[in-house]
């Protein structure tokens, strides 16, 4: 039986920080700065970073991923080595990871901090990678005695909001958990302009991972389950509204979607709870996934409302609700009003 990965059980045991400068493509004149030693960790720092990791991997944000066997990224090898060595090889492997990140990073990526953690989740070894973007001027200083960065300085930068957790990946040995995915990632990038490129880049290029399930399948499942749930709602007006909402949501300009976000943006609280329970029964998660409408494109183009008297109104999804005014009547029927010019009759 598969074991659960519960983020509340995370224990941070070892942590190391490396720094990557901003550099132009193919210009490697400015080298990354590596820590030669792990940072010493007080209980307070342990809890601080645990909190940050848990917050980043919250249920509506994280994405289950698998190592892509076709990827040229060597990062999965470094991660496995850290996990298998129970963190003993953290310094060496995290340096290799940082070096690879530096190599593939081009001028579009700002200077950053790489924090690599070795620890436990559900009492089993885990490796957590955090990539932080830092503001201009927010510099880390190498301690000349240890030739290493101090993790406390990273905490201070985070608290003064000169940087924030930006990307997180938590990995485990899936065979020990009897699960099908190697880890979970979260991308807290907010800027919609660069979202698509950066998301793909971190998970695919750097970590060498792909989502656990084909996004086309996940998107179709989301559409099918949500539609079934909406169809079971008795109130025809609400049913029409949610159908229209689902359509709008799937067509909005966003690379990632989630059932949680859909419910939050469109549903009444009582419906959200039933929706959540329904998806739970279907084992469909509320968390984010990359959207791909390929399998449902034809279904989301039109919306058809069929009345008991065999009259049907067919409209384009996305504009249906705006153009058809619906009103529940006391006798249980629904009044639909369309005000427009007649274009054709077939």
């Amino acid at each position, binding site marked *: 039986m598969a074991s659960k990965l*519960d983020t*509340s059980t*995370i224990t941070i045991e070892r942590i190391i920080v490396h720094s990557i400068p901003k550099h132009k493509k193919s210009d490697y004149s400015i080298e990354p700065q590596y820590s030669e030693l792990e940072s010493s960790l007080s209980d307070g720092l342990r809890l601080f970073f645990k909190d940050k990791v848990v*917050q980043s*991997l919250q*249920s509506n944000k994280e994405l289950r991923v698998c190592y892509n066997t076709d990827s040229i990224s060597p990062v999965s090898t470094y991660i496995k080595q850290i996990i298998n060595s129970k963190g003993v090889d953290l310094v060496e492997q995290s340096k290799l990871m940082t070096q690879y990140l530096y190599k593939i990073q081009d001028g579009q990526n700002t200077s950053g901090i790489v924090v690599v953690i070795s620890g436990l989740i559900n009492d089993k070894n885990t490796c957590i990678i955090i990539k932080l973007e830092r503001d201009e001027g927010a510099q880390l200083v190498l301690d000349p005695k240890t030739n290493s960065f101090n993790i406390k300085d990273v905490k201070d930068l985070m608290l003064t909001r000169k940087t924030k957790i930006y990307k997180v990946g*938590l990995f485990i040995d899936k065979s020990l958990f009897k699960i099908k995915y190697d880890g979970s990632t979260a991308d807290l990038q907010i800027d919609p302009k660069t979202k698509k490129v950066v998301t793909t880049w971190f998970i695919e290029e750097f970590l060498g991972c792909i989502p656990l399930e084909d996004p086309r399948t996940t998107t179709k499942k989301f559409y099918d389950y949500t539609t079934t749930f909406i169809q079971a709602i008795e109130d025809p007006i609400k049913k029409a509204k949610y159908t229209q909402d689902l359509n709008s949501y799937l067509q909005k300009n966003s690379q990632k979607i989630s059932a949680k976000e859909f419910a939050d943006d469109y549903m009444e609280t009582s419906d*959200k709870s039933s929706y959540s329970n329904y998806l739970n029964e279907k084992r469909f998660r509320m968390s984010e996934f990359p959207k791909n409408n390929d399998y449902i494109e034809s279904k989301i183009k039109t919306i058809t409302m069929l009345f008991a008297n065999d009259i049907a109104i067919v409209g384009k999804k996305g504009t249906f609700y705006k153009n058809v005014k619906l009103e529940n009547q006391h006798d249980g029927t629904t009044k639909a009003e369309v005000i427009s010019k007649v274009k054709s009759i077939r």
Partner: protein
Amino acid sequence: MTNVKEIVDLWNTEQPKYENLGKLVNDFIKNKITDYEILPEIHYRTKELLSIIKKVKKKQAQKEYSYQQLNDKLGIRIICKFQEELDIIDKFLKDNFTIKNAEYKQESLDFNKLDYVSNHYDATINCSIKEFKKHNEFENLVFEIQVRTLNQHAWSNTAHSLSYKQETDLPIKLKRKVYRLLSLYELADDEFSAVNEALKSYRDNPIYNLLRKIEGKFYKFAKFDYDRETSLKDINTILSYFETDKSKQELINNIESFITVNKVKIQKIYDENKTRFHEILLLTQPEIFIIWYMLQNNSFTIEDNWQNDFDADDLEQAKTLWGNEL
């Protein structure tokens, strides 16, 4: 004859040892008794030298008696809220200490007698218990544990102030007054217990019902008391978020099993965060269990309404502590 000098010398040597034992036993009881979902007051004291001399002298006047026979050189007092907790504490003491002698004063009283009632135990530490294993030096030191309810304690203190003893020769009128008072303390204990039991199953008031269900569990994990007024207010507000009585009742019915199923997780959260309770005040109130229950089972209900009444950061903190499944 009492050899006072001998007693002084002996006590000067032994007192620090008894003091250390007192601290050890006091800390042990405070830490462990909450596993039984109660939070009694616990105190300890080593006897004053003068009291020791006086007591030995007094006993010697009646029979052969020595300093070594004195079993209350260290006294531990446990004061609980309700009578039914006396049995729980009795079990706790028998499970964790070596009891040389137990005296249940209530049992030794005739039906028509009223007097100070409490349970007294002559005990030593049980070195097979993990926390006592390294303290062999205390293994043979006998100490006394007194267990009483708040009302028994109040009576005992008042009687002490009045210098009252059962056997004192007082005018019948005055004696009657004392008896009437004493009966009130016994009645109060019975009535408090009855009310406590009734509140536990008082379905008409879900707030009380819920609080009584989670209070003991809270003691178990937090090991300290909480602000009742805040809890009653918070629970009232949180319960108002439910749109149907059905899901509210589900919470009330399932909260205890939720806590039991997640006890390892909850213990870890409390252990891990004990240095920062002051930063996470929700952890110091039993309603945190209700919040975690809802985050797991009614997440939208709590997330959609929380900000109207509480600080959004507090819910975020509760969510972070609880974590999620990846």
